């Protein structure tokens, strides 16, 4: 994937660029808003990681608005030290696709950027999701694995749906809280772990090959092959 990082802090930018390259992505970096806008407008990227506060006269929001005004729909993830709810809402309203507050864990950033690009590709309505021998029918809201029907509670169904839509990608606990429960804060209790382990009991326990994997220091991943 081709990713543009617009971030003025050298250390943060270096860390992000290095991490993304290690994860196998092609990365361009701009350290001010003007260069960032030029790159974003003139080349094709799969995703843009954009700092809110940038030097060079054009800040993140302006850059974003200019891009969207040019009908450029590249997914944008805001990276910002402005973490108040209002700031988040403002960023998303301006056309951002996701918002991550500094400081952040790289695993969280990576998972979210990869989820963004996936979201961009699946625009058509899907009726069926498949991971390995696990199948989900979104119309009849039923789940099967192999020839066995799996009974899920409504919330478990949504949790599995989210994981299947992001199959092969790391999904963090925060992403699950936001995406499945619509909670925008982190409870102190490990609620997500418990729900994921209950889901695992139902979809993995009776079968030989585990599909739902725990990724250390990051989150979870649903995929057919071994991690």
């Amino acid at each position, binding site marked *: 994937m081709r990713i543009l990082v617009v971030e003025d802090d050298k250390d943060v930018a270096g860390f992000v660029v290095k991490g993304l390259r290690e994860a196998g992505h092609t990365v361009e970096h701009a350290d001010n808003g003007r260069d960032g806008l030029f790159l974003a407008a003139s080349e094709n990227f799969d995703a843009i990681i954009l700092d809110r506060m940038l030097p060079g006269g054009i800040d993140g929001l302006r850059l974003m608005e200019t891009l969207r005004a040019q009908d450029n729909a590249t997914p944008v993830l805001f990276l910002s030290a402005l973490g*108040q709810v*209002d700031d988040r809402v403002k960023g998303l309203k301006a056309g951002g696709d996701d918002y991550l*507050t500094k400081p952040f864990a790289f695993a969280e950033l990576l998972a979210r950027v990869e989820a963004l690009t996936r979201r961009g590709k699946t625009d058509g309505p899907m009726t069926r999701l498949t991971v390995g021998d696990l199948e989900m029918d979104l119309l009849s809201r039923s789940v099967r694995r192999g020839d066995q029907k799996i009974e899920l509670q409504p919330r478990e169904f949504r949790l599995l749906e989210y994981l299947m839509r992001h199959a092969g990608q790391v999904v963090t606990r925060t992403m699950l809280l936001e995406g499945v429960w619509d*909670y925008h*804060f982190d*409870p*102190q*209790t490990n*609620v997500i772990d*418990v729900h994921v382990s209950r889901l695992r009991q139902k979809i993995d326990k009776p079968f030989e090959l585990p599909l739902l994997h725990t990724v250390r220091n990051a989150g979870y991943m649903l995929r057919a092959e071994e991690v």
Partner: protein
Amino acid sequence: MKRMAADSAAPPGVIHAPGSWRLIRSAGRRFAVLYALMFGVSSCLLAVSLWYSTIGLVQRQVENAIHSDDLALTALAQPPDGNLAEVAEAIATRLMTPADTGGIYLLVDGANKRVAGNLDSWPQGLTQMNVWYQLPVTRNGAASVALLRAEALPDGARLIVGRDVRVRAQLWRVLRNGLIWTGFLMVGLGVVGAIVIRSIFRRMVRDISITSRAIAKGDLSRRLPLGVGEEFDELAVIINDMLDRISRLMDGVRQVSNAIAHDLRTPVTRARARLEDAALHAESKEDMQAAIERAIQDLDGIVGVFEALLRIAEIEAGSRRAAFAPIDLTQTLWDMDELYRAVAEERGLHLRAVINAPLPIFGDRELVQQAVANLLDNALKFSTPGMTIDLSARLEDDVVQIVVADRGPGIAPADRRRATERFFRAEAARSTAGSGLGLALVSAVAQLHNGTLQLFDNNPGLRAVICLPSRE
């Protein structure tokens, strides 16, 4: 901080009145001038209407009297029955009336010879018939001023009928002089009134400005005095409320900075020590890795504390009120029950939820979620296997009451009041994980919704009750 500085750099919202009004900078003077103007204009209007109604009325009355007299006398002269002698007789009769009505008559025949009347000669200047004249005349030998009208009679005779208006001219003069003096008096009264108004205004504002100046210099304990007048009291109450809020916020800031200084030092010290220890003593790559990971965890913990602090500050600042909407909490609370039930069961606890619809409030769903989540986090943290946690909610007397009760160690009565302070941790809780910010946030959320957080003894355990005013 950076953003705050940018905000305050914006031009202050000064409203300028247009034109010369701006020349009078003092509001007191403006009120005074306005008062004087109003007073002057209304006095002038009064004087003008008095003048015209009095003088006009007199004039009209005189004209009517002359006119009817004239008609009556003219009729007497008309042929076939009438003749000059009858007119002369009628004039003589009129002039014989003992009371002097100021009547003026002159009848001359075709040869211009005086037949009857009390004028000595035809007045100079009276040339046209049937027109009003005001002329000096000599009546019975005395000079006077009269309103006159001449009429042609048959056979070239002419008749003058008039009224002496010397008295009216006197009335006119008296009235004019009176009005001039009244004018002076009114100007005087207007000026005095303006001065009085200005000084009253200044006195009212003086208390407010003295107090405000003291407050601006940093004495936040001062409050504006009441009892100056209803409108000023209203202003004073608003300003006082604002000051209360400012001082509460400043206390909050002070408290938070103190707390940060004391309580964040500990985890920072821990992380620093771990890193330094690893740098000096780590023998293998694994040791180093482990130390770094622990340090990252410590830092994440610190970030978590910062986020909680900022969140509380954001809530207390009240800016979230802009996003308030009418919502019902029933489904929200069932969702929380579902989210936490799994964890409770995992830990061998029993979560009992009794949620009675409807639960309508005007507020922020996300904040209420977080508040209830914090209470449930606490309840889970302090419960041991086999215990029951109760989550209940109902609408009673226009108050939505959300209760989270556990059977854990609870909070000692002495600590209960301080439990909602930032970073406060009861003795029993010192050994458990946590930042001491959970209840502070719950309390802040409740207060933002004009509600309360109360803590009771659950015998044993803690019973936390959030009361939010219902929107209905």
